[in-house]
């Protein structure tokens, strides 16, 4: 189950042979979820991250990098063990990779307390954004609530009055419903917490039909979301009761699976393939060329995380042991994000714009995500004020 995937960036450095000194590669520990239903999320983060390294020939910001990828199998305990081993045995000072908030909750405190730096490519749980924020902890994606706040804002903009909301019963699920409520101005017609390992939603479909809301908001990451939407369709609810979701619920993998059935679903998101900026125009074709499979927000987050780390390595010349210098360099966020404007707030979580996307028919007849409008500008998170850094 545990796999070790070592990329020797140093080989590339030696091959060029022009450098006067042989720099030992900086080791980056990537603890991520590669197995189980959530496996493709970690895979996309890893491959997005690797894409930046490959484009630089095994380096990030001109510094040779060795990426150690380990699978946490969505088990907080396993993630913790891996992190401890990397910290103690391999003296790794820079970590990234975690997909799920429950794993992050177990791993991140260990990592930052040991004096290492953690840069999150995905999970941004609320408890680590507020009082428990840490100077060694950076989030390059979003605070968990953000993606759902954007969905709430989208539902408000679309004029819906009664929403039925569902999410799995774990930290990120609770954050999602809290986030949606915060920016949705209508009433909540019903609220259901599903199980994190649940794949059959027949009971929930019946509850939704009985409540007959204006709009359904649901948050089910990865395979769970696919099962949910397919069953929504089979229950005859798709097209009858509109759905607004956050970006975690509908990525291009899910879209490819759902086909035309997904047309008309609204999505709140921080990024889309059609964003018109130079970084994004370099990223999207590069991904297609390298991997040839659907590109997801997870790919983008892995890619942006690598860009952020590259900018800090460049600024410090790869001296990861100088944590203070690394922190200062990371906090500047001196890189061109594929999402456009990006900077860190006081709690070292992003301040960025949010958009409403819609699933529409693409030029080739297949459904694609189109950007409709910007709905939140320079949006921060609800917990930043509680963070004393």
């Amino acid at each position, binding site marked *: 189950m545990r796999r070790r995937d070592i990329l020797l960036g140093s080989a590339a450095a030696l091959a060029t042979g022009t450098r006067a000194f042989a720099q030992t590669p900086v080791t980056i520990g990537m603890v991520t979820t590669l*197995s189980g*239903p959530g496996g493709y999320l970690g895979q996309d983060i890893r491959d997005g991250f690797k894409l930046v390294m490959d484009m630089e020939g095994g380096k990030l910001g001109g510094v040779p990098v060795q990426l150690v990828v380990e699978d946490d199998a969505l088990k907080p305990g396993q993630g913790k063990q891996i992190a401890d081993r990397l910290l103690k045995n391999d003296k790794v000072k820079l970590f990234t990779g975690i997909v799920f908030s429950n794993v992050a909750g177990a791993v991140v405190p260990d990592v930052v307390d040991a004096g290492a730096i953690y840069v999150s490519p995905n999970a941004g749980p609320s408890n680590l954004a507020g009082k428990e924020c840490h100077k060694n902890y950076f989030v390059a994606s979003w605070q968990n609530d953000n993606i759902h706040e954007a969905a709430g804002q989208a539902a408000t903009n679309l004029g819906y009055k009664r929403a039925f909301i569902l999410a799995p019963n774990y930290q990120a699920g609770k954050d999602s419903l809290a986030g949606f409520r915060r920016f949705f101005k209508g009433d909540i017609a019903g609220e259901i917490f599903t199980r994190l390992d649940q794949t059959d939603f027949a009971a929930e479909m019946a509850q939704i039909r009985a409540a007959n809301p204006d709009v359904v908001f649901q948050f089910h990451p990865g395979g769970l979301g*696919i099962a949910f939407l397919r069953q929504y369709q*089979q229950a*005859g609810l798709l097209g009858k009761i509109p759905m607004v979701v956050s970006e975690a619920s509908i990525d291009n*993998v899910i879209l490819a699976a759902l086909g035309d059935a997904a047309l008309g679903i609204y999505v709140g998101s921080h990024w889309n393939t059609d964003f018109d900026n130079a970084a994004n125009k370099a990223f999207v074709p590069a991904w297609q060329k390298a991997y040839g*499979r659907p590109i997801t927000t997870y790919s983008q987050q892995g890619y942006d995380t690598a860009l952020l780390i590259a900018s800090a390595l460049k600024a410090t010349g790869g001296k990861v042991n100088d944590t203070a210098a690394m922190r200062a360099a990371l906090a500047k966020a001196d890189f061109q994000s594929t999402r456009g404007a990006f900077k860190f707030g006081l709690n070292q979580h992003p301040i960025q714009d949010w958009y409403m996307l819609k699933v529409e028919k693409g030029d080739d007849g297949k459904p694609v995500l189109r950007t409709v409008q910007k709905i939140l500008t320079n949006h921060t998170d609800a917990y930043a004020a509680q963070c004393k850094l």
Partner: protein
Amino acid sequence: MTLVFEQLLNGVQLGVMLFLLAAGLTLVFGIMGVINLAHGSLYMIGAYAGALVAAKTGSFLIAFPTALLAAAAAGMLMETMVIRRLYARDHLDQVLATFALILIFNELITITFGRQPLFVSVPPLLNGSIELVPGFRYPAYRLAIIVVGLLVGVGLYGLIQHTRVGMLVRAGATHRDMVRALGIDVRLLCTLVFGLGALLAGLAGVMAGPILAVQVGMGEQILIMTFVVVVIGGVGSIRGAFLGALIVGIVDTLLRAFMPSLLRQVMVGSEADALGAGLASMGVYLLMAIVLLVRPRGLFIHGQ
């Protein structure tokens, strides 16, 4: 009222899926005394075989028997190569070996088909919903699952209670040494029973395909509930597996559907939802604990 009825049907549907898995598990445990954690992998193999053939041929009618055969073949292969060596060993060795099988099957599937889930579309004939009573529609496909599950239940009952093979199976479950002493080829019987269990798991897998996402690790998600069914119904009893599965399916679904709204009568909305969800997910395990206290051998095992 229709809501309660619909949720009951959902419960029955979950129940028959659990039964298809539990039937194989309970027979294997009852007759051979092997705890087969890799039973969920057979379910996954059925689902993958069905999904792949359906995608290639576009026909559910071809995919269906292929999936059953694939799962049965994988099961019999598993029995002759690995499980057979475990009969004489203690349960810890069995758990270790079959857990290893889970890991091996999951990785094999990952290497061959990748981590991204596969999708099967509902057969066109069963797409849509049927009006059972005026004003109440239920998805045709789920209804078909219930019908198939009940038919399999009846078929298994006939097989076990009224045929010679069934007699051997029953005898094997209760008096294994006696059967062996009477000169029955117990090895062959074991392989056949294991194959039958695998076939049923494959059936559950291929039927689950169009509803759930076909993905690595899908077997483990349902396996835990299946063990609950086996414990509640009693080890080795098909009747116990059937009734136990229906009880677990219905209890789980009804708790999930109605616990939060019941709690909302006495407490604040969001707290009620959170507590209700918590209680609902504990529900079947609580039930299992109670059954273990009251009737440690299972609800539907008599005597001894």
